[in-house]
Every structure is written in structure tokens, then in C-alpha cells.
């Protein structure tokens, strides 16, 4: 049968307990204080940064990490950059619940639209509702170079714009798939591309075909001022696709300085292969890369001091205790641990060193970004996070 015995504590109650545990871990280890919704008083007003200058960078992990490998005492050794550098400068939300489909593409698309999307996770289809990029560009009349997505997984090539009537084609974000670009740059010769492009860890061997407006190789040079040779040479110094994504994201920030930049990481999802050591290695690498991206943001003149950063997994992973799953390996049970995750918000106007444990939903991200950048997420299901706007 599908699942078997577990306590009768409701899923909502488990999510709440999980959030409290996260809060306690953080309060003891990172020295953060408990925040209160009463503190909120308008982030945009507090910063005094003109709307045109504001920027937002979103970093999501397509492949969640559990508390025991991250914020719990035994996991903190895996996330030193988050614990020591980022959380003390952030507002940390301990209970971000994803009530949608727990597949990486559809869940990330839901994060980007603010609506729980219901399309087939494995299909190369666009989101059904307008994305943050479309709201941003259409409402604020921004050019296509002002909204970008960097994603390591080829399956994400349609995430930049929806097929929603009155939004959609031509109004979304440009999407770069660095691994795909690398394969094109090398023209398939010599390298072990079959393994490199195998980015869907749930279905080994499978490499999705591309369709849609992905970033073309010749644009590397034109837009990013990066020659194919330099790109290839640099890739040879990197150990993972997420490192390549961060490299490309930095190039983008440096050359084009988009106001809305969305980076999706995927290394942690190696967990689907069932190898605990590689999963933990993925967490450590992602932690390091988040720290590096934050430093890059602080050192880029176009970004320093006017950029809000949001870091969040798309969802969690199954609990060891749920017999319907196989612990860290998957996110198939729909249990509280796999649905409840966290979010870290940083940047101007965000109160530093505070932890909030009231329940949010993944769909609240887009309306919150809308409040910061000045667009209206008209079709999103979520609402702006009071503590941030």
C-alpha cells in the first residue's frame, strides 16, 4: 500500500513543531533573536532606495536539505557560511510550507509564479500562470536584459515565461542553462557529456530535450563578454554544475546587472542516487556558493547596498521516520518534513539577526518581491510577507 503507520499528529502541527525546533537551533547557535510581526513597517520606505535602483536576487535549491543535515546541532558543520555569515545578517523564516507538487521543476515554477502549478513535473512546458519576471517586465516596462534565470537543469528551460494570456512570450526572463551551454561550447567532443547532462537525479540516464528560448552560445560573447574559449577554460577549474551556474550568475551581474536575477541550484539533488556522502557534499558546496554569491553582490557596485537576496529550498526531503519514504533520498511522502522548509531574506530594509516562525507559504515569495520592486503579482495566490514589506 502507499504508506503505513505514523503518529496521528496533524501535518500542520508537525510543520509548526519543526519550525519551533529550527528557531531554537538558530537562537542557540547563531545568536539570533525571535522576531515579531509587530515590527513590520514598510521595507521599501525604510530603505529610501528609489524603486528603479532596487534589485532582487533569488537563490533556490532544487533539492531540499533536511534540518538534521543543516540547522540541527549535528548538521551545522555542513553550513558554516549560512550559520556564521548569512544568518546573522538576515531575517530567517523557519516555516515555509509548500502545499503543491513536490517535483523540482513544477515547485520552482510555483515559487516563480506564486501559484501552485499543477503541470507534469517532467514535461517541458511553461508555467500556467504569469511569472515574477513577466509581472516585473510588463508592469515596470523593463527590457529583456533586466530579468534572468540561471538554472543547471535542462528541464528548467521553460521557466522564464508562462503561457498565460496577456503575459507570456516576449515578456519573461532570459534563461541560461550553463551545462547545456558548456556541452554546446565543446560541441560534444571528448567529454563525458552523457554524465554531465544527466541532471534529473530521479531518473538516471535521462537527459531532457530542450525546447523554448534558451540562451544561445553566440550570446555568451555578445552579452556576457565571455569568449567560448574562456568559458570552456574556466569550466575546467570547476567541480560541479552549481559552481558553473554561480560563475555565469557573476558574469551576468557584472556585465548586465539585471534587476531580477533567479538562480536555481541542483547539486544537492544527487541525494536521489541514495548516496548520503554526496548529498552532504552537495549541501556543503551550496552553503559555500551562497556565501560567495552574497560576497559578489556586496562587491558589485550596481548591487551593493540596494539588493535584497532570498535564499530558500523549493521544499524539503522525507523524514527518516516515515516508512513510506527512504529518508533523505527522496521527497515522495508529502510528509511535514518534505513540505516544510525555510527562507532567508537579506539586504536593505531587512531586519538582521531575527527569526520568525509563523507559517508562510512558498507562494508568498512572488508578491513579496513585487512589493519590493514595485509590481503587482495580480494572479499570485500568496501574499506579501508582512515582516519584509
Amino acid at each position, binding site marked *: *500500500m*502507499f*504508506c*503505513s*503507520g*505514523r503518529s496521528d499528529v496533524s*501535518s500542520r502541527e508537525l510543520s509548526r513543531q519543526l519550525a519551533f525546533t529550527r528557531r531554537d537551533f538558530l537562537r542557540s547557535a547563531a545568536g539570533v533573536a525571535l522576531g515579531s510581526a509587530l515590527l513590520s513597517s514598510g521595507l521599501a520606505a525604510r530603505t529610501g532606495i528609489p524603486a528603479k535602483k532596487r534589485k532582487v536576487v533569488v537563490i533556490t535549491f532544487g533539492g531540499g536539505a533536511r534540518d538534521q543535515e543543516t540547522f540541527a546541532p549535528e548538521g551545522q558543520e555542513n553550513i558554516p557560511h549560512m550559520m556564521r555569515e548569512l544568518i546573522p545578517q538576515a531575517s530567517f523564516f523557519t516555516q515555509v510550507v509548500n*502545499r*503543491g507538487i*513536490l517535483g523540482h521543476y513544477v515547485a520552482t515554477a510555483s515559487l516563480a509564479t506564486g501559484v*501552485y502549478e*499543477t*503541470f*507534469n513535473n*517532467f*514535461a517541458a512546458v511553461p508555467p500556467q500562470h504569469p511569472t515574477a519576471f513577466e509581472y516585473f517586465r510588463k508592469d515596470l516596462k523593463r527590457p529583456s536584459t533586466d530579468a534572468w534565470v540561471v538554472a543547471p537543469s535542462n528541464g528548467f528551460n521553460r521557466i522564464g515565461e508562462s503561457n498565460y494570456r496577456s503575459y507570456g512570450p516576449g515578456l519573461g526572463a532570459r534563461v541560461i542553462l550553463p551545462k547545456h551551454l*558548456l556541452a554546446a561550447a565543446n560541441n560534444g567532443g*571528448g*567529454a*563525458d557529456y552523457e*554524465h*554531465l547532462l544527466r541532471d*534529473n537525479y*530521479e*531518473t*538516471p*540516464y*535521462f*537527459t*531532457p530535450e530542450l525546447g523554448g528560448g534558451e540562451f544561445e552560445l553566440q550570446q555568451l560573447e555578445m552579452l556576457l563578454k565571455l569568449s567560448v574559449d574562456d568559458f*570552456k577554460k574556466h*569550466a*575546467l*577549474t*570547476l*567541480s*560541479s*554544475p552549481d*559552481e*558553473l551556474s554561480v560563475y555565469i550568475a557573476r558574469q551576468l551581474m557584472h556585465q548586465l546587472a539585471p534587476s531580477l536575477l533567479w538562480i536555481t541550484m541542483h547539486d544537492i539533488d*544527487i541525494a*536521489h*542516487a*541514495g*548516496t*548520503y*556522502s*554526496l548529498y*552532504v*557534499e552537495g549541501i556543503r558546496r551550496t552553503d559555500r556558493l551562497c556565501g560567495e554569491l552574497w560576497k559578489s553582490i556586496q562587491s558589485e557596485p550596481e548591487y551593493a547596498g540596494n539588493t535584497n537576496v532570498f535564499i530558500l529550498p523549493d521544499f524539503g526531503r522525507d523524514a*527518516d*521516520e516515515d*516508512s513510506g519514504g*527512504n*529518508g*533523505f*533520498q*527522496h521527497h515522495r*511522502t*508529502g510528509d511535514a518534513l518534505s513540505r516544510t522548509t525555510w527562507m532567508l531574506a537579506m539586504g536593505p530594509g531587512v531586519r538582521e539577526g531575527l527569526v520568525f516562525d509563523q507559517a508562510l507559504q512558498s507562494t508568498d515569495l512572488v508578491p513579496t518581491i513585487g512589493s519590493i520592486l514595485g509590481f503587482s503579482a495580480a494572479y499570485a495566490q500568496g501574499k506579501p510577507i508582512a515582516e519584509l514589506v
Partner: protein
Amino acid sequence: MLPSELKPEQFNGYPPEARKLVTNDLAALQRLPLSFLPSLLREVIEYDFKFPVERRALERELANLKSLSREQTKEWFQGFAGIQISAELEKSDWVDAPAQFVEQLSAHLWATHQLDVFRTAALAYAERLRAAAPPELPAMPRLGIAVIGQGVAKAEEPLFRKLRPHGAYFSSVQTDNGLKVLLDAAAARAKAHPVEYGHWYIDGGQAAEHDPELTCVSYHALGPARAALSSKIRAEIERPGMGPESLRTLLAQLRPSDLGMGGPTDQPANLGPDRETGKPVDAVLDRFQVKLLTEGSGTQIFSTTFAQWAAREALRRAQPLTLLVRFAPRQRQKPMNEMLVGGNERVELDPLGSLVDADMGAYYNWLNQQRLTGAEQSSFLVWFENHGEALIIGPSTPRGTESSSAANLQQLLSWMA
């Protein structure tokens, strides 16, 4: 089609024992909701290839369903009855392909936000079933053994961190003939309590010499099947329109003979000699092994994943009295820059990473063992192969304790009882 319209001849495609089972209880099945029945049929259609303990559990479940009055059935399944099923699902061939239906149902439940309702209904049903038709108690207290760290000279991090709170840690264990001692102990239990598929030895590498009384599965022995599977998958994904879901469906349909295993047919009643070894074919075990490779994620590539998943599935399905799992080094995951250079096809091993995998795997083995009946009497031993570190958990073992006194594995085994 709805369950109420079921007819005996619709099960003609089922294997003989399964057909007999299902047609005997057809009236009871006709009363079940469509959101539930295919999940049951998914088990029934595999009846001929199930382990004895699974067969008996299924028989108990069907007998229980048969014993329920119409009103009781309604009450038992009211949670499932409220689930909305799409017309497309209703029209699908859920009698002949129940596993495919369940997979599509799962996608439908996620997409229509009914997964939580389904989950609650499934948990409630499992609980009622457990009360009405309790699972079997083991014939003797269960023993789980995990041997981890093959080929590692020195562990870089403390071992057994997850298990330590539950048992006693020993740091000066004598290692002479350690694996043989443990395999002999497993064999002695098999001889003392001979139960079909009751005593297992799973090896993530090449199996060591062992008593034939033990049911043995090894990653090494499945090498040809893994290679055959790999080329099949490669060929399939080249075909236009092949996506992850079609690939999964295809994998689910693979039989041992498709991967070069077993005898000339897959029918359990027709047990010819094995094509390779000439020994009698064990169709039940062959089918189990194929499922490990086709249903387990990562089992085809990483031996540590294979060993952990094989143990999980053996515990869940065969519910062994004894299970010895020996983890072996898995292949090293190449970093991106090495993949880019290409050319080096040699498979390198990653013993240290494998130790970390196996340490977690041992914890999962224990958790899965404790989900079975008789958990309060069960024992568990984990040993860092050829090193002095081990940990035992048992009904009389003090929890969260450590000992640096010299001990050998035989003593540890005797102290767990």
C-alpha cells in the same frame, strides 16, 4: 470502468495463483472504491512472485475484506470514497496494469491537492487492518547485522553517530575472521530455525563464501543484469518521445529473462535450470532482484545505494529473521571538470565516501528492522570491517554506553540476546 463492474474473466492475464486468489474474493473487491482497489491489485498481480510472508499478509487482507459487510466496507473506505478520480483514470486499464494506474493516480493526487486526504485515508486503513488482521510475529527474535567500511584504513569522522544513543559502542573489538564469524552466526540461525527466505546475506560487492541456507543477493553477481539494463535504457532513451515516465513504465515491465537472468520463462511453476549456472531457478528471488534494479533509484550505479535499498526491500517484503548486509566501496562520482576532460573510462572507487553512505545505510537498516513485528526483542550489530569499532543494540543492551574493554564479535553477538 468501476470496481462494481468487475468480472472474473478480466483477470485472465494474471498469473495462475493470483488469478485464483482474486476471483475467489471478487465480490469483496467489487465493493471497493477505485481510489483504493488498484493499489491492492498491484500487490495481487505479483502474488505468484511474492515471498511467503507477503503472500500470507495479502491472504489475510483479502480475507478481512471478504468478512466485512457492505456497511462495514463503506465505513472502512469512506476516506478513499471521497477522492475524486478523473474520467481518464477511470477509463484506463487498471485491472491489467494496476501499477501504472497507481503511478498516474499519484500524479493526479498531487495535481488536484488530494494527496493529504489520500494519505490520511491510507494511514487510517493500515491502522484498522493491523488491528483486524495483525501481522505475523517472528519465529525467533530478529537479528540485523551491518558490516561497513570495506577497504577503509581510517575513518575520518566518528562512526555510528545515529545509532549510538540506542546501543552500546565498543572500541576494542578483536577483528580476527570477523566476517566469517558473523556469516557463521547467520548460518547457525538459519539452521536452527529454517524458514524459507528467512535468513539473508546481502553484499554490496562480491559475496564472501557463505552457507547455502542463506538467501544471498550481491551487487557483483548482478553485474551482467546491470549491464543489460543499462544498455536497454540507453537504447530506449534514444527513441523519440521517450520521457522519464514512459521509461519508468518500461522498467516496471522488465522481467528477469529480459536482463539475461533465470530460466527460459518467468512462470514460477516452470522452474527450469538457470541459463548460466544450471542450478534451479528461483523465480521469486530473481523477480525481487530485478525490482531492486528497476525500481530503486541509484541502485544501478552505486553499490552502497544498492546494498541499502536491497536491505530495505528485503526487510519490508520478506521480513527476515536474520539479515546480514555488507557494504562495499562504490564508484567515485567524478567532479565536473574530470567529466569535461573525458577519456578516462576506468571506474575508480571511493572507500571513504562509501563508509559515510554505509554508516547512514546501517542506521536505515536498523530503522527498517524496527518497523517489523517483534521489534522490542530484535537485536542489531554494526561493525567497521577489519577494525575494532562496533556497536550493538538489543533488548538487554544498555543505551548510549561505550566500552573500551577487549571483546570479540562472538561475545558481542551473545550479549545482544
